[in-house]
C-alpha cells in the first residue's frame, strides 16, 4: 500500500515550528495563546503541533501582513475559511449523490 519506507513523524515541536515559519518562539507562544494553532501537550516544552499547523500559521501571517488585520481577525478568518472549505466539500459530496 504505502510506498514510503520510513515511518514519518507527523508532528512538530515548538522549536521546529517556529523555525519552519520563521518567527521567534515567544511570538509562536503568543499565537498559541490566541488559539490560532492548538498543540497537544500541557506546557510549551511538551507541545506537539500537527501537520496542518505550519500551513495554518503561514496563512495567518500572510493575512495579517497583507490585509492589515490583527491575530484575532486572522484567526477568525481562518476558522471561517475552514468552515467554508468543510461546507464546500460537503456540498460537493451531496452534488455527486444527486447527479
Amino acid at each position, binding site marked *: 500500500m504505502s510506498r514510503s519506507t520510513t515511518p514519518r513523524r507527523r508532528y512538530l515541536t515548538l522549536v521546529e515550528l517556529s523555525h519552519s515559519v520563521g518567527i521567534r518562539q515567544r511570538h509562536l507562544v503568543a499565537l498559541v495563546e490566541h488559539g490560532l494553532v492548538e498543540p497537544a501537550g500541557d506546557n510549551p516544552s511538551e507541545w506537539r503541533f500537527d501537520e496542518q499547523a*505550519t500551513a495554518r500559521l503561514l496563512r495567518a501571517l500572510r493575512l495579517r501582513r497583507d490585509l492589515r488585520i490583527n491575530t484575532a481577525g486572522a484567526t477568525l478568518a481562518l476558522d471561517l475559511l475552514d468552515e467554508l472549505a468543510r461546507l464546500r466539500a460537503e456540498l460537493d*459530496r451531496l452534488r455527486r*449523490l444527486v447527479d
Partner: protein
Amino acid sequence: MEFIDYYKTLGVAEDASGDQIKRAYRKLARKFHPDVSQESDAEARFKEVGEAYDVLKDPEKRGAYDELRLQPQAGGFAAPPGWNYEFHSAGDSAAFSDFFRTFFDAEPGPGTVRDDPHAAPPRDVHQRIAITLEEAFHGYRPEIETRLFDGPGTRRLKVSIPAGVIDGQHIRLRGQGSGDGSARKSARGDLYLEIQIAPHPMFSTDGRDIYVTLPVAPWEAALGASVRVPTLGGPVTLKIPAGSQTGQHLRLKGRGLPGSPPGDQYAVLNVVLPPADTETDKKLYREMAERMNFDPRAHLEGAL
C-alpha cells in the same frame, strides 16, 4: 515591454484621491488574497493589485508614473530619455512586472551580480504543488521548478512526495530554499511545498478519508447485496446490509489515504430507480404499488 495601467488595475479614476486608492486597494486585496480567494488567477491578480498600489500610494512615484503615461505607446513601451528615478520598494519585488522593475525598482534585476553575495541571508521558500489523488495515495516524485531568490532564473529539482499526503499539508525539503550566495547547502533555507490535491472525478476527500458515491438498485438496498466498490488501492467487495437507504455511509476501514492511522473510505449509497420504459417494467411497478403497503409521505400526514 507592455505599459501597465495601474489606475485600471485598481479600478479608480486618474484623479482619484489617496483615500480612494487605499480603499480600492484594500477591497481588491481582500478579494484576491490567495489565502482567501477561490479565483483561479488570484495569486497573479493579488500581485498586480499590490504592484499598482505600491506605485499609486506614493505621491512621488505616482507623479513619475503619470508622466510616463503621457509617453506615446505605439509598438511597445520604452523608457523616455533622461529617465533616472531610483525607487526602492519594500517587499518582494521579484514578483513584480518587468514594467515595474524597469521604472520603479532599483533592485538588481535578473542577470546582474550583487556587490555583496553574503548580504542575502538563507531564506525559506514556500511554493504550492498540485498533485492528483492517485499521486497522493501512491507517493510521487515530480521534478519541479523553483524560483531562485539569490540568482537569476529558476532551478529544476527532483522532490519526493511521500504516500499519504493530504490537501493543505506542507512538505519540508531541508536545504532546498534560497541560499546566502555560497554553494554550501547548510547556508540555504528550506523549501516548503504546500500540497494541493486536484479534484477527482470519482472520489472526494476529507483529510485522509475518501468518499465515493455508490449507486445501488432498490432491491440491493432493500434485500442486501455484495457489490464491487472502487478504491484508490483497487476494487474491493462491500456488503450492503438489508434495509439500506440513500445517503447511508458504509465504511471501508483503512481504505483511505495511507498514514498512521490510515484514512477510511466511505461509500455513500444512492438508490437509483430503474426506469419504467417497457410494459414488463411498468407491470412490476404497478404490482409493487398494489401489493406493498408503503406511504413515503406518512410523516407529512398532519399537514396534508
